[in-house]
Every structure is written in C-alpha cells, then in structure tokens.
C-alpha cells in the first residue's frame, strides 16, 4: 500500500492539461490566494506556541519550586499561569485553528480567497489583542475569570480582529462552487458562528451587565467549556474529517453518521460546562443537566470515532508514512479519551475526589493538546508544503516532533491523573492535614515537569522545521516527505 498524498506541482510546470490537472491548477491557485494570510496565522501561532511552552515549563517548575523567581511581581506563579493559558488558547490554538479553517474553507468552497489583506489585518488585530492581554495579565490586570482573563481593552481588540476574520471566512460561502456542503464545512462554519456568540454573551454577562454572584462562575464555565468544545473541538473535528479521507484517498465512511455526529455534538456539547462546578453553590439541576449532557456526548464521540475508524479501516498502515495521518489519527483517538475522562470527572462520585485536584489540568491538556493541537500539527504538515511550494526537509525532525509530543502528553496525562487521584483522596480525608494532599502530589508534578521538557523539545524542533519552510529551505520534490522510506512503483503516487 502506498501513501497517496497529493504531490504539489507548481502551475507553471504543467504542460499537459488533463482533467485531473485542471483541478490541480485550480487547487494551486486557491492555495496561492490563501498563502499570505494562512502563513501569517501559522507563523504567529508558532511564535505563541514557543512562548506558551516556555511559560508552561516555568509554571510547572514553579509549582514544585515555589521560590523560583518569585520576587518579581510579573513572574509570580499566579500571573504566569494565566499568561500561559491565554497564550495557548488565543495565541497558539486559535491562530492555528483559524489559519487551517481558512485554508480548508477556500479549498472546500473551491473559491480563491478574495482580498487576503483584510484577513491579514484581522489577524494583526487578533495578535495585537493577545499581546495586549498577556501584558495586561502580567501587569496584574487579569479579570479573574478562567479563560477570560484578558482585560477589556485586549478583549475588544481581539474581538475586532475576530470579526474581520470570521466574516471573511463565512463570506467565502457566498462564493462557493459545488453544492453539497461537506461535513468539514459544517464544523468550520459552526465554529465561526459559535465563537462570537459565546464570546459576546460571556463578555456581556460578565462585564457589561454582570449577573449576580455565583452566576458569574456559571457563565464563565459555560463559556470556557463551549470554547473548548464548540470552538476548538469543532475546528479540530472538521479538520480531521478533511485530513483523514484526503490522505488515504477514500471518502468518509458514512455521511449519515457524520450528520448525526454533528448535530448531537452541537446539541449536547453546548450544554456541558456546569459539571466543572459539581457540588458548588448552585441549584443541583444545573449541574445535573451538564453531567447528563456530558454523558450524552458519548453519542457524537462514538459516531465520529466509528466514522473515522471505518474510513481508516484497512489503511492504518499508512500512518507509518504520512505525518499528517499520524498526527491526525492520534488526535482523533485522543478525542475519545478526552471525552471519556470528561464523563468520569463529572460524575459526582468521582468529582468528590477529583473536583479540585490536578485531574482537571490533565483533562484540559488532553482536550487542547492531545486532541486539538495534534490534529492541527497534522494539518500544518499537510498545508504548509502547499503554501510554500516546498516539502518538509527532514523526516527525522517530524518523527522527533511526533514522539516527543506523544510521550510528553502521555506522561503528563498519566502523572496528573495519578497525582490528582492521590491528591484528591488525601484531600477528602479530614484526618490528614491539608498540606498532606499538596505534598503528596509534588512528586507527580515533578514528573509533569519532565514531560514538559519533552514537549518543549518537540515544539522547538517543529518551530525550527517550520522556519526552514518559511525561508524556502524545504525540499523541492514532487513527493511529500514520508516518515519512513517507501518505494512506490512509478505512477503509484496518485494525484487526486
């Protein structure tokens, strides 16, 4: 079985225009129109990724060595942590997600991107917003809401940027050719419509006309969970629905399953959030509703998982070669693990122990890293060569990136799950002093720092590789870079 990624040919080199080649020219033109904005989103995402990784390492080390550089106000743990979080959420994840989404939209709508400079302006505002927000947090301007720490001046800059970007992405629909809307487009369109909805609702209810008392926490978690599921989750699922069939060259197994998966996801995932407040000072029905929604989320997880699995059936060996496939499939599998963990920690009998432990950190990382970021890495491995006209230079660097990321996130999840469990059990035992619970988790936190080193390596390797691509130092070849050597018979590399 041979890997069948599309080889990139520059339009100029094509002399023989068969039907397939016409399509290829069209694709190349679309890719070219998205080049500047998408690369800008990617480049800024990678810069934020590096910054966020350093902040993460710092956060992690400070947790078990609290005296490390604690005498400077803007380096105190309580500021570094939200800085890390927001850099990752809005700097890395949103940028890379939007870049990917724009490229996918253009491809799937089969339309060139008009006025890419407007998108670039939007991206500029967005990044300015992130920068302002991070500085605000470090200076002590945080708002105190999880995942919404950006002070208002940064939040609105961010939103202006977003409006420019999203309206453009949605407008592409107007120019689309070809009627059936592919499943990926549903997810992307939904993500682009959901984000402003939830962002505006949260900003309004928290800052403009603030709701009373504990409801702020409810609105806060409603937003945070929807950001995770409906924004990042939709972007990642949509991308996976494109990449997996594309790379293996086979249609999605079932359209019906995909439709069921999408609508149940939209319906149930949006109702989650309150389970993060289990047994807090709320009417019990709110939390129960979210817990039930969380359990029902197993339906979309199962349908999406089944769909991907059936699509991939028989083609799993391709993961040996294609970097995109490898990252994407890992991400898609993590989606299942993430959802299952989400159900577990929202059940009251588990939440008793796990609610205030490190397990919730494991949960967030499983969602944002193992699921979302890995799929986005995969997408970048697919898209970037099509934008710069070069192939990734070193298969070995891709492998290092993959394995360091996988072992990093794996170790981190294990450490935080085990440590969180110990911590939670000790915390729930009033006979032990409270510090026993924090002390008992320290060894695991050191292990987590170790995993952070692995991930730092992965990200720097990736950034270096990406930089080579940007500088035009990739390979010039008609065949994509495979992780392991393949010996395709000539003509076996199919363009499609």
């Amino acid at each position, binding site marked *: 079985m041979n890997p069948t990624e599309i080889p990139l040919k520059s339009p100029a080199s094509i002399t023989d225009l068969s039907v397939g080649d016409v399509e290829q020219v069209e694709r190349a033109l679309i890719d070219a129109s998205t080049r500047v904005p998408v690369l800008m989103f990617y480049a800024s995402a990678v810069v934020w990724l590096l910054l966020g990784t350093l902040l993460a390492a710092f956060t992690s080390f400070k947790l078990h060595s*609290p005296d490390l550089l*604690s*005498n*400077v*106000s803007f380096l*105190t*743990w*309580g*500021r570094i*942590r*939200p800085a890390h979080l927001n850099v990752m959420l809005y700097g890395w994840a949103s940028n890379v997600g939007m870049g990917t989404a724009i490229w996918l939209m253009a491809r799937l709508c089969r339309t060139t991107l008009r006025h890419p400079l407007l998108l670039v302006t939007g991206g500029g505002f967005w990044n300015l917003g992130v920068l302002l927000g991070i500085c605000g947090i470090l200076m*002590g301007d*945080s708002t*105190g*809401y*999880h995942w919404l720490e950006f002070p208002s001046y940064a939040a609105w800059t961010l939103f202006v940027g977003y409006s420019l970007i999203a309206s453009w992405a949605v407008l592409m*629909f107007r120019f689309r050719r070809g009627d059936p*809307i592919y499943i990926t487009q*549903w997810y992307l*369109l939904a993500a682009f*419509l*959901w984000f402003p*909805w*939830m962002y505006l*609702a949260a900003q309004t209810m928290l800052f403009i006309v603030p*709701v*009373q*008392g*504990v*409801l*702020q*926490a*409810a609105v806060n978690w*409603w937003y945070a969970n*929807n950001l995770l599921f409906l924004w990042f989750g939709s972007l990642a699922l949509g991308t996976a629905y494109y990449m997996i069939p594309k790379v293996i060259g086979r249609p999605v197994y079932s359209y019906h399953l995909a439709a069921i998966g999408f609508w149940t996801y*939209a*319906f149930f995932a*949006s*109702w989650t*959030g*309150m389970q993060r407040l289990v*047994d*807090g*000072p*709320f*009417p019990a029905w*709110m939390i129960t*509703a979210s817990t039930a929604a969380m359990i029902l989320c197993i339906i979309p997880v199962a349908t999406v998982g089944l769909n991907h699995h059936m699509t991939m059936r028989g083609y799993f060996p391709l993961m040996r070669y294609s970097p995109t496939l490898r990252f994407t499939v890992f991400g898609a599998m993590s989606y299942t693990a993430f959802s299952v963990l989400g159900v577990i920690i929202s059940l009251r009998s588990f939440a*008793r122990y796990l*609610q*205030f*432990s490190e397990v919730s950190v494991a949960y967030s990382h499983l969602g944002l890293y193992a699921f979302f970021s890995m799929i986005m890495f995969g997408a970048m491995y697919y898209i970037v060569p099509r934008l710069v006209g070069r192939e990734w230079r070193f298969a070995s660097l891709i492998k290092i990136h993959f394995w360091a990321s996988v072992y990093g996130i794996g170790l981190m999840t294990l450490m935080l799950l085990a440590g969180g469990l110990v911590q939670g059990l000790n915390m729930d*035992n*009033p006979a032990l*002093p*409270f*510090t026993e619970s*924090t*002390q008992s988790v*320290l060894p695991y936190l050191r292990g987590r720092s170790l995993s952070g080193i692995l991930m730092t390596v992965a990200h720097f390797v990736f950034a270096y590789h990406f930089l080579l691509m940007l500088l035009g130092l990739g390979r010039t070849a008609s065949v994509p870079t495979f992780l392991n050597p393949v010996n395709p018979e000539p003509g076996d590399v199919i363009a499609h």
Partner: protein
Amino acid sequence: MKGFTPLVLGILATLAFSWLGLAYIPDLQIGHLDPQSDEEGTDIYPMPKSGMAERGRRVYIANGCFYCHSEQVRADYAASDVDRPRDAASSPTAKWGDRRSAPRDYIFDRPALLGKMRMGPDLANIGKAAPAEEEAALPQPSPVNPANPAPPGASPAAANTSPPPGKAAPQQNAKPPAQPSTPTSPDGAPPAANATPAPANAAAEPSSKPAAQQATPPAPGAPPPAVNASAPPANAAGQQNAKPATQPPNPPAAAASPAQAAAAPSPAASPSESPVPYSAAWHHQHLYAPRSLNLDSDMPAYKFLYEKRRVGGEQSADAINLRGEGAPGEGWEIVPTYDAKCLVAYLMSLNQSHPLNEVKSAALPAASPAAAKPAAK
C-alpha cells in the same frame, strides 16, 4: 444538511438553547437574591465588603490566588469539606466551614471566585478562622510592662490591619503579662511579642518553646521561626526579654496583643512566636514568607507586596517580625504595602459562617440566625 440557511439557523439555535438553559434560566432562578435579614430587618447577611477588602479582591485576582484557592465549601454529603480542620488552627473549631456555601453567600461578589483547584486550602471562611479578638483589640489599652528597656525600634508585631504605624515610644520589650483580654486562642503565645533581640532569641528559645508549640499545633515540624518580632535594632540590644514563657497558656488574646502593642507606646516585646494563626499579622508573614510558618507550604512568597526599608526612628507597627534567614538586616524592616494590607483585609473578610435559612448548618441551628451569629466578623 441540504441548504445553507437551515444549517446556519441550526447552528445558532443550538447554542441559543444552551444559553437559555444554562445562563438565562438560572438567572431567573438565583440571579436576583437579596441579603437575608431577621424579622426586625437587622442582622443582615451578607453585606458588601469594605473598600479596602474590595481592592484586596483585585490584588487577589491580579496575583492569581484563585488558581490555587477555592472559595466554596461543598455539602457534607458531597465531600468532607465541612469536616476538614485548618492546618494551622489551634482551636478545633476552625474548620473549612460549618455549612455548605450557597448562592446567597456570593451576591455581592464580583467576580465570585469559586475556584477550580486546591493546591492550597479553601478560603471561603478564612476570615472566620481569625482570632476573635481581632477587632476588639484595638481600643484596648495594653498593659505594658516596661520590663526591659527595649531597643528603640522594636516594633509590635503589627498585627492588625489598621493600627497606625509607629508608636512612638521606644519600646520596651516588655511583655504584656498575660493578657487577660481575649480568650480564644490558647496559643496566646505572645504573639505580640515583637522585637526580639537576636541574641535574646537564642536565649529565649528554650523558654519559648512550649508556647511555640501551642501556637502551631498542626505543624509541629514547622519551625517556629517566624516570630513576630522583627525588630532588628532590637536585636542589637540583646535583651532577653524573653519572658514569653511566663505567660504561657492563656493568653489567648494573641491577636489582641499585637494590636495592643501597636496601640500602646511600648509594645511588648517578647520572644518571638509565630503570630496567632489567621490573624492579620499571620497573613502578612505568611504572604511574605510562607515557609517560615509552614515548612510544607507550597505557596510562592509574595515579597513584592512588601517593602523593605530603613527603620527611621522606631519600627513601624505593622512591620513583619521575621527571624532567621528571611529577616531583614539590622536597621531594616519589612512593611506591607497598601496592596498587601488590602489583600489581608480581603482575606479577613471572607466569612460564610453566618447561617442561611436555606442551608442546613452543621454547627448551628439555622433557625436562630441572630443567636448564632458568630462573634468573629
């Protein structure tokens, strides 16, 4: 889906539905609560916080305290929050809470910092854990024994949030002999004791020992270094004022005493003990050097909220009394900035012990809120 329009409508409708269910309807249900009061309209709870405490909330947020400290007590059937004693508390009654938290507890909070993680203890009732005398202390004149001529500069352990700094008189480290004043905490170890001359400390050590232990029961291992007494200059004069031992058991008034000391011209200087747990002085020392109070603490130090400055004249009333490693050099003192004072004021204001009609309280019958009103503010 066939068309574009149904798709868009469906997308918008699903999120609207969830917003309706999880944000709008709850707002109708618990979004407009009023404070509770008894029949006469007195005994109102909760009340808005003071300006200092509100500013302290901003400091609390700015430095991310809420990432490690929750402010919610879960119900007894859901977790053992209400059974959990505070680590540094000397009295068995200082638990995380008497009852679960309820929406009404937070009606004036903006934002309500419920928290998601407990790398540190829950703080919903941290203000209640403070020694009860805290407020009473101020007015009280303190009996001072000018027993030892104190080095000038000795300062009272500044305990209370607000005592005006400076007391003029050169102090004597006299120790207020047992202060009858307030009863609550046994460890009365003269928290008040401030200025401890360094040499004296050494000398005092043995004698202070017992007191120290009382003071920090929960963490025996923790070195009792943290004395309030910081007066550096005092050190010079090696006095032995250490008489702490003398008033061992009773002086509950720990908190009070610092206060008194502050008020009084001559603070009692006593060998240093840790300040009474959860008093303002304790919070300041804990924020400045957490591991001087609890070796196992995982909290970062917030030294940037404090100012190290030369002692001019005599030491400020609110200087932190640190001994040992963290102590400022001679002639220097560490005083809280305004932000630090606000932060402590905020912490001291966290108290959900007032009974609520809608919540069953473990310790107190909910029926008689007025009666049950805890002394502590």
